[in-house]
């Protein structure tokens, strides 16, 4: 080894020591919590594990979580595409402010994200009396859960798309327009295919967060069993009632979806780096 090489990388024993420290840290900090979920879930055998899913309240919670996720991801995807198009393709006044506002939900505590909807739509809230007169329930019902979930997952798709669209530039789209393609045709044939991996990544991240949202939904849900409990809230109830195996069984379901989300994200990232010249 030459001196230059020696000084531009660490001695072998330093490398080995650093790798060991990092492996130990990640093992304790990240992998042990994941492992313990499955350990606790299967601790009393497969039969007890499966029994947790015979509870109709658990299925009601799964259904509610999926509905809230579906609506929130749908809304935020349409918004994300529009916002990324706007911010990546046009220059206008107030662009910096708009970017900051889009990031805002990431900076706000989920608990406050729930609180603002209670203050807006709750019985004592701003629009509360009007809603009551018209017999519309938002807080402590499905609409509130959907709104709070949409709030906390707001920036995911827009952020992923924006980063990719900014680096790609506008040449392809301009060429399509010059050759006579209409605006929608340009969008569906050129823009969307060019950013498809970023779009999928944004949707995967958004879905994972929507499915697992706890703080914001906890504030607006009202915790009515079988009605306004999402899966994470159902886990909380089971855990607080000392039904540990059932709680961890439901948690193992959410952990599996989280692992799938990570795998899909890693796969999409690889495809994206292959796509780049």
């Amino acid at each position, binding site marked *: 080894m030459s001196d230059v090489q*020696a*000084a*531009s*990388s660490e001695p072998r024993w330093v*490398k080995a020591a650093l790798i060991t*420290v*990092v492996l130990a*840290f*990640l093992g*304790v*900090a*990240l*992998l*042990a*919590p*994941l492992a*313990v*979920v499955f350990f*606790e879930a299967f601790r009393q055998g497969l039969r007890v594990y499966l029994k947790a899913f015979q509870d109709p309240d658990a299925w009601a919670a799964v259904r509610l979580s999926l509905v809230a996720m579906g609506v929130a991801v749908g*809304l935020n995807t*349409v*918004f994300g595409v*529009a916002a990324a198009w*706007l911010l990546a*393709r046009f220059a206008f006044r107030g662009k910096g402010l*708009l970017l900051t*506002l889009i990031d805002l*939900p990431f*900076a*706000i*505590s*989920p*608990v*406050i994200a729930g609180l603002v*909807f209670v*203050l*807006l739509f709750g019985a*004592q809230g*701003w629009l509360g009396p009007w809603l009551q007169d018209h017999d519309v329930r938002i807080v402590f019902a499905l609409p509130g859960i959907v*709104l709070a979930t949409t*709030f906390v997952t*707001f920036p995911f798709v827009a952020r992923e798309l924006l980063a990719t669209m900014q680096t790609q530039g506008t040449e392809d*789209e301009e060429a399509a*327009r*010059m050759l006579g393609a209409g*605006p929608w045709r340009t969008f569906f044939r050129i823009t969307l295919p060019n950013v498809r991996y970023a779009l999928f990544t944004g949707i995967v*991240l958004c879905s*994972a*967060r929507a499915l*697992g949202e706890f*703080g914001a939904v*906890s504030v607006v849900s009202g915790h009515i069993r079988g009605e306004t409990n999402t899966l*994470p809230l159902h*886990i909380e109830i089971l*855990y607080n009632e000392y039904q540990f195996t059932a709680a961890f069984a439901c*948690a193992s379901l*959410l952990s599996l979806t*989280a*692992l799938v989300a990570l795998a899909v*994200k890693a796969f999409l990232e690889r495809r994206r780096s292959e796509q780049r010249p």
Partner: protein
Amino acid sequence: MSATPAAARQRLLPGFGLSMGLTLAHLSLIVLLPLVALGMKAAGLTWAQFWAAAASKRVLASYRLSFGTSFAAAAVNAVFGLLTAWVLTRYRFPGRKLLDAAIDLPFALPTAVAGIALTSLYGQQGWFGRALPFKVAYTPTGITVALVFIGLPFVVRTLQPILEDLGRDVEEAASSLGASRWQIIRRVIFPELGPALLTGFALAFARGMGEYGSVVFISGNMPMRTEITPLLIITKLEQYEYAQATAIAVVMLAISFALLLAINQLQRRLARRLNHV
């Protein structure tokens, strides 16, 4: 032609009005209107009411706890996140790619799942709780452990692109000029990493201040001792003390906005650095 080239190009690409309309509508309905409701509620309080609610003894204790544990967790993450990012970008070892994908686990795993998993690990009967000579669960240490889990990806993912971008040629140049490995790390690499490390620290800290789901299970929630600020907001809400909940939320929002501004400044500086190198 009187139009500037930029303006001409903007006209060639369609959809400014549509994308602006969709973006503003969604942003206003989901994020801005609810925040205005919070502002209105806060504006309805007298100064004395606000002060009594936002600065009572119990609330002050919760700020101290949230601030202290978030700071400690962000500091732990700054150290181990830097090591992790370094090892993942600079060294090649079996399982590296898997480990790299696993860093995002705290983003994908629902916070409630992380919460019950950590409580089970560090509880008296848990794998770590049994082995450790001091109590972790239901103490501020336990809260810090949860916030380390939640904050780790922020530090690692902020540092990784900088470390990948930091040219080996600079290090080789320094070493050919006679610098030792330690001098290079201290004088060449560290100053380059400073802003990214600070950004990662700030992101992890901001997330910790607002975190709820992963903390409530392991914290024990004793007033004055292990009660974090977001939990206190929920407690006030459950007691229908909406004005008090609002006052505390306003203080937390002010802290979040200050952090967001600082982070934006840091990131702008980071982007400039990445473009220069």
